[in-house]
């Protein structure tokens, strides 16, 4: 929580509410896929106990160029005290990725190279919380393991040397190549409770189209469609939230984010417990310059309250 003066915060909030008309128009939208993006990251299992390993995967898009990409995974040791002092969360280091890895490919202390490719594995030491007495609450409150992913829009050879990797990191830092750095936290704690599961998405539906309509979904030019996700009830998991204050029984909330390579999305982010649903307006014929190919994609990423994630890809074709 930043240092703020309450009256100033209040007035800043009011000013933001009342002066939205005074902002210059912003033509970029988070839902629009038109560059190298990381849309979501997921760990299996979604939370770890000491001694466990999670497989981490990522949803990366690079529309419309679809360039070959290199994915570099780095991991920072979890801090048993959860004081958020990891180099993976240090803005001064992240501005200069070379601090994570030097020119020879050597990693800084507390940082590990997890590998390259579409997935990586993150392990937690069994004795993570051994510095605490057996019944210390911090064991149950837990901490986070941190994963950094550097996605670079350039391919490396199949078995690159550390130096090649370091050079690529440097090129990314110098903006010589498109890149995106992503931070992901995996909850780690000792718990007798069932582990968190990533939510499930059965399917994506479009109002006006039958559920069993084969992919790609045919969407007409100039039409607006209401989209939805079918998420099984078991994805809304009950759990006990343990914090320094105490334990509280809760039910997970699920939040969805929609993305599209073409068209206009409205209400692209929503709480699945509300009645808000995204609307996709398919471009008219005269607007098809922005979407030269009739074959396009929709993505949906769903996050739960405890850090679980999943995603769904739905191709669609624009028909006259």
């Amino acid at each position, binding site marked *: 929580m930043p240092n703020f003066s309450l009256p100033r915060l209040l007035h800043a909030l009011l000013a933001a509410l009342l002066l939205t008309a005074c902002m210059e128009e912003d033509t970029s939208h988070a839902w629009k896929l038109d560059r190298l993006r990381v849309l979501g990251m997921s760990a299996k299992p979604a939370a770890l106990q000491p001694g466990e390993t999670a497989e981490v995967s990522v949803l990366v898009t690079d529309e419309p160029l679809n360039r070959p990409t290199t994915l570099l995974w780095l991991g920072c040791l979890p801090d048993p005290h959860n004081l958020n002092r990891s180099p993976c969360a240090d803005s001064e280091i992240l501005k200069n990725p070379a601090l994570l890895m030097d020119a020879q490919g050597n990693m800084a202390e507390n*940082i590990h190279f997890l590998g390259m490719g579409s997935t990586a594995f993150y392990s937690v030491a069994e004795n993570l919380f051994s510095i605490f007495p057996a019944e210390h609450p911090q064991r149950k409150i837990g901490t986070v393991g941190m994963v950094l992913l550097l996605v670079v829009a350039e391919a490396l050879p199949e078995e690159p040397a550390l130096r090649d990797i370091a050079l690529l990191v440097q090129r990314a830092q110098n903006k010589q190549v498109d890149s995106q750095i992503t931070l992901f936290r995996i909850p780690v704690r000792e718990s007798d409770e069932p582990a968190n599961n990533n939510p499930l998405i059965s399917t994506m539906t479009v109002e006006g189209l039958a559920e069993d309509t084969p992919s790609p979904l045919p969407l007409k030019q100039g039409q607006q469609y209401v989209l939805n996700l079918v998420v099984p009830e078991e994805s809304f998991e009950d759990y006990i939230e343990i914090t320094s204050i105490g334990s509280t029984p809760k039910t997970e909330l699920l939040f969805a984010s929609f993305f599209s390579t073409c068209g206009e999305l409205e209400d692209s982010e929503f709480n699945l417990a509300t009645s808000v649903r995204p609307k996709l307006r398919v471009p008219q014929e005269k607007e098809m310059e922005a979407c030269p190919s009739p074959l396009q994609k929709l993505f949906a990423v769903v996050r739960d309250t405890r850090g679980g994630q999943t995603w769904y890809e739905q191709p669609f074709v624009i028909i006259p």
Partner: protein
Amino acid sequence: MKALSVWVGLFGLSAFANPLPPAEAMAEPPLPSQSTPPEEASGPPQATSEQPQEASLPQLSKSPVLLESAPATFPLEMEAEQKSGTVILELEIDAEGGVRKVVVLESAGPAFDKAAVDAAWKYRFSPAEVDGKPAPVRIHYRSEFFFRPQAETRPIAGPMGAFSGELVERGTRAPIAQALVVLGEGENAQEAFSDEEGRFSFAQLSPGTWKLSVSSAEHELFSAEETILPGERTQARYFILKKTYGAFQTTVRGTRDKREVSQVSLQQEEIRLIPGTQGDAFKVVLNLPGVARSAFSMGMLVVRGSRPNDTRVYIDDVHIPLLFHFGGLYSTVNSSLLERLDFEPGNFGAAYGRSTGGLVKGNIRPPASDGLHGYVDINLIDTSVLLEGPVGKGWSVLASGRRSYIDALLPLVMKSDALKFTVAPRYYDYQLRAEHLSEDKKSRFFVFFFGSDDKIELLMPNATADLEGRNSFGNAIRFGRLAVGWERRFSNQLSFKTRSSLGYDVMQIALGDDMFMKGTQYPITTRNEFGFTLSERTTLRVGADFSLKPISANVQFISFPKFNQIPDPMFSRQLISAKENYFFFEPAAYAEVQHTPFKGFQVVGGLRADYNSHINKAWVDFRLALSHTFADRFKLKGAVGLFHQPPDYINGQTSIAFGDVNLKPEGSVQTSLGLEVSLTKALSLDIQVYAKNGFNIARQTLGGNSQADLSVDDSTKPWASFGSSRAQGMELLLRHQLTDRFFGWIAYSLSRTEVTDVLYGGYRRSSFDQPHNLIVVASYKLPWNFIVGGKLRYTSGALTTPVVDTIFDANGNYYYPLNGRPNSVRLPDFFQLDIRIDKRFVFKQWMLSLYVDIQNVTNRKNPEVANYNYDYSKRTYISGLPILPTLGIRGEF
């Protein structure tokens, strides 16, 4: 028998504090006309009148009023010669209102002179007051002797009549004292002066129609005809139009007198007419040199680069936690209640402490005692009302309040499913006061109950920003004070003043159900001060200033992040709950000596000792101010001082759970040097330079680094007292005092403010740095009670921190900015022109004002903050208000 008329008038008041200056320093002699010339104020005096050589001296706050007069005897020898004459006298009036010296300035011959002087020795006045205290003064007085041969009068058959009346100021209903009433014409003319209650009377009048004329320095000439009936007393009440309206006067001072590093004195009339301030005296402070403009013109008092919380605000010596509603809409205390408003940007005296910024002190005026008065003011945002009047002997009371209706209007304007107001922003404030003034005017007692309440609650039905589902936000700030004050002037050598208060402050903020901060405190304060006049050249003030604060804080929140850390969006695993109860004890004692070793040179030195029980620290501050007046229109001044304040506990810096109770008191060494010049009677120039060096400032600490030992519980607190700051600047004020038609000023500040650079070492520009700050204000009175005013403001753009890169936070589903060097980019400069047009309608017993206040007439889009798109690849600006006309209507009686 010859009936002769003698006409005397009272002109050209000029007042001086004890000791009286030499005669050559007096104001200009009165002009040979019945009405007082516009340049010479004769009504309730301005704190700085049109006498430039006194602009920097103690201020006349109340003129003497003639209570008892004695008619001058027309000299027989002059009568024989059928001569007329005018004698101009200089009267020295002591602090009790008696005449102690009479000097003839312009002679009309020995006979007339003696007659005028003999009469003048019998006059008795009410005591004049300088800076609120009775003081000896010197005035000019004009005696006119008219010779009129008396025509033979016919005996009147039947009984005589009488006539009495009352003179009342149109619109305000204030009694008009010392007005000359002439009944009749030619040889039958009779004259009388109205008393303090505006009453006059004539006896032994012949029945018939009489012409009446009333003349008064501040009022338009009035004429009427009355019919006198035999054996009856005719009574009348006249409502007379004032030349210049400004019902109550508030003096806004740049600094306290006697030590003046910068000084601006304004009348209530000026304050009401400055565009963009809605007549709020406290907002006028935001337009003075030394005060930076804050984003969106929020009412943050950024004084000489200090943080807003470093400047303290006092009402009747009682500290209040919030000056403006919602950060800048209106002040929380009705500024029309102010008698005086002092603003000190720095180097204030030893009587005040616990602050390294500036000082704003408002003194509330006594409620009206001359009848029932009040007003109703309605505008687009809120309505305020005031009612006041006398109650019993010596007592007067007032009640005032303001209530917004944004909460009613906003939901109509903002129709959005994304945002709902559980409680739309609303505010109100209230003031109740009872005051007693002793008959001898030496004692004053008041009880003042006042407070304020701001609240807002939002609900975002489809909130997706917080993955833990928090979709509500609430904020409330309220405070109340019950203040009691008493002061007494025991003698010319001894005075005493006490102010005590009980209060409550509540500040709360809530985010969802599980994150909240609620702080409640009950400040109990008392300030007691003795004033000793040791000699003609030396005065001593000693005092004690105690504050007791039981505080209860219930907080469930995340800890302050370290300066370089990317926050974890999952707040629940970081929550810290703390219920902390404190009892702050903050005693202080001070002593201050003012000495004038020789004419024109003044030294003010003070010492102050403070203690704060919460951090268990004590400190001693010294203050020194020097001034030298020379050539009657120049004043050179300088000051140096050490200032301390406790760390900001309101923001949790000294919280056991969230901060560090071992933080040191923050300090600052302040110096200033200035020159005041009276260019003309109405035009003055004040220029000064200053330097401030801060130390032991609490700053956020850095988080761990890549080599951090994770097995160690890092006990580094989020705050540490390692910060320092430095500020230098120049302030200039060129001001034209309020005359009949015009007032205005040009204020310019050039400054530089830097703070410790936590990341890169050395110093960097502070967030409050604003190198250029120019304000031009002007107001002109047109015929038919129209007034037009304008305010132009130009300031350097705000500093912002550029975003050099981003990371995508996959847990929070947002891009997080990676910042470049803090405050290394300046937004475009700010420019705004406001205009205001007033039209006043003056009726017999009340006045109606209509006004249009248009802010940002040129509709310039002034960037206030940088705004980025979702991935920070594009930057736009959030601009301030566009052209915004405000309509208002105010009725007062």
